[in-house]
C-alpha cells in the first residue's frame, strides 16, 4: 500500500518535470521518470510474497509459488515503447536546438495559442 503510493509520488515528480520545466531535455527526463514509475507499478502489482522468479529449471518445477509473469511481459513491452518515444523526443530536441540554438521552450514559442 505505502510502496504503491511512493511509486505514484515518483510518477508525479516526473509529471511535474514534464509539465513545468522550460528546458526540453528536462522534459525528456521527466518523461523517463514517469515511464520508470509506470513500469514499477505493474511489477509491484504482480508481486507475490515468497514468490519465485517465473523461470523454470530442472530442480524448480511446476507447483511452487511464482510471482505473476504477465505484468513482466507487459513491462517488457512498455520499456520498449518508452525507449522508442524517448529516442524520438531526443531527436526532436536536437532538431529544435539546431533551428533555434537553445533548449529553452519559451524562446521556441513561435506558434500562438
Amino acid at each position, binding site marked *: 500500500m505505502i510502496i504503491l503510493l511512493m511509486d505514484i509520488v515518483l*510518477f508525479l515528480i516526473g*509529471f511535474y518535470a*514534464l*509539465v513545468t520545466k522550460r528546458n*526540453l531535455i528536462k*522534459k525528456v527526463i521527466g*518523461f523517463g521518470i*514517469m*515511464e520508470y514509475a*509506470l513500469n514499477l*507499478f*505493474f511489477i509491484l*502489482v504482480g508481486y507475490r510474497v515468497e514468490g519465485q522468479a517465473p523461470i523454470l529449471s530442472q530442480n524448480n518445477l511446476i507447483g511452487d509459488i511464482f510471482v505473476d509473469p*504477465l*505484468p513482466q511481459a*507487459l513491462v517488457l*513491452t*512498455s520499456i520498449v*515503447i518508452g525507449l*522508442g*518515444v524517448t529516442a*524520438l*523526443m531526443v531527436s*526532436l*530536441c536536437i*532538431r*529544435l536546438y539546431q*533551428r*533555434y540554438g537553445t533548449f529553452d521552450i519559451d524562446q*521556441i*514559442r*513561435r*506558434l500562438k*495559442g
Partner: protein
Amino acid sequence: MNAIVVFVALPLFAAFSLPIIGRFWKRGLDAVSLLVTALLSLCAIYFVIFSNSLPQVYPIGFWPPPLGISWLLDSLSLFMLLVINLITFFVSMYSINYMEQYTSKWRYYTLLMLMLAGLNGVVLSGDIFNLYIFLEITAISSYALVAFGTGAEELEASFKYMVLGSIASAFILIGIAFLYAKTSTLNMFDMASVLAGSPFNSASLLFVSALFITGFGIKAALVPFHAWLPDAHPTAPAPISAMLSGLVIKTIGIYALVRILFNVFSLNIITSEILLTLGGISMFVGVILAIGQWDFKRLLAYHSISQIGYIICGISLGTPLGIAGGLFHLFNHSVFKSLLFLNAGSVEYATGTRDLKKLSGLQESMPCTSWTSMIASLSISGVPPLCGFWSKLIIIVALFQAGKFFYGALAILVGIITLASFLKVQKYVFYREIEKITSKIRKIPAFMCLAMVGLAVLCILIGVGFKPVLNKLINPAAEVLVKGRGYFIELLNTYGAN
C-alpha cells in the same frame, strides 16, 4: 474468418518492405501503397456487404479469450474499419503528387502504412493492453509525420503534441495497471464480467474512468485538453492533416474511450454527464475560436474540435438515437473534414500560402478544388441534401428527446456559426475578386484532383442515400454500444475458455 488478418498484416508487411522497395524502385512506392490501401478498402467493403454472422471473435494463436489476445469483429469495429480504410485510400492517392514537395518519400509511406496498421489494430483489438500498444504505434507515427517537413514550426508543433500525447499515454497505462490489479485479467470480455460484480461508483472504477477520460480526452482533443491540436494539425503535410483530423483523433480518442466506457465499464450517470459537458464545451469553444482565424488549415483544425464535441454529445447520451447520430456524424466528419484539409493542401500547393487574406478569386483557376470544397463546406455546415445535415439533425433530435434542451439549443447555435464561418472561407478563397493572381498558380495534378473528387462524391452519396447507410452500418454499430457490458459478458460465455 482468417481474412481479418489482412487488416493488420498487410499494412505491416508493406511498411516493413517499403524501405527495401524504395531503394530499387522509386515509383513502386506509390504503386504499392495505393494498391495496399485499395485492397484493404475493398476488403472492408466486402466484409460490410457479405458478413452475416457478426460478432466474431478470432483467437490469435488459438488461445481462447481470457488466455491469449483475441480480435473482435463486430458491427462497430467493422464500421470503423470501413471509415479508416476508405479515407486512407484517398489520402494515399492524394499523396502521390503532393508529397513530391518533400524529400525521402519512402519514409513518409512507411510511416503512413504504420499509422494505418495502428489504426486497424486499435479497432480490431479485444484486449486492453494490445489496444494500448496499437494506440502507441499510431501516436508515434503521427508525431513523426507532423514534423515531417522538419521546419521550425513543424518541429515545435510536433514537440508540443508529443509532450501532451505522452502524458495521455501515461494516464491510460496507469489506468490499465489499476484495472489489471483489480481484475487480474487483460481481456476486455473477461474484464467486463469481473467488473460486473462491483458497484459502478466504487472509488477504483471512478478513478480509472477519470484517468481514461483524461487520457483519451487528450488524444481526442476535447476542450480543456485541446492545446496541441490547433498547432499539430495545420503544420503537418496536408494528407497527414486529413488523416489526423479525419481518423486519428476519432479512432484512438473517441472509439477507444467509448468502447471501454460502454462495453467494459457500462455507461453510468456520472461518466455520461461528464462526457456530455465536455462535448458541449468543445462544441462551443471550438467554433468560437475558429471565427477569428485567418489561416485556412488552422481554422479547419478548430472546427475539428467543435465537430468532435458534436460526436461526443451524441454518443454520451447513451440512447440508441443519440449513439447512432454520434457515429453517423463521426463517419461524415471523417469524409468532409479530410476533404477540406485536402482542399486546403491543394490551395497551398497551387499558391504557396494558406493565409485567407492573401488568397482571392481562385474559383476560375482551380475549378476542381473550388467545387469539391464547396460541397464539403456545405456538408460541414449542415445544408440539407448533404451528409452533415442528417447526422446533425439526428444528434439535435436525440438531445431534445433526452430532455437536454440547453445542449440541443447550443448544437443549433454552433451549426449556424459554423455555416457563417465557412461562408467566410468560400468568399475569401474562391469568390472574392480583388486582384488576379493567376500568373503564379500551379496546376493541380490529376491524382490530387481524383482524390478530392472521390471524397466529394462520397459526401453526396452518403447524403442522398443516408437511409441504407443508417440501416446497414450505423444502427447495428450503435446497437453494440447500447447493449453495454452484457454484450461482452455474452461474448465471453460464447467464446471463452470454459
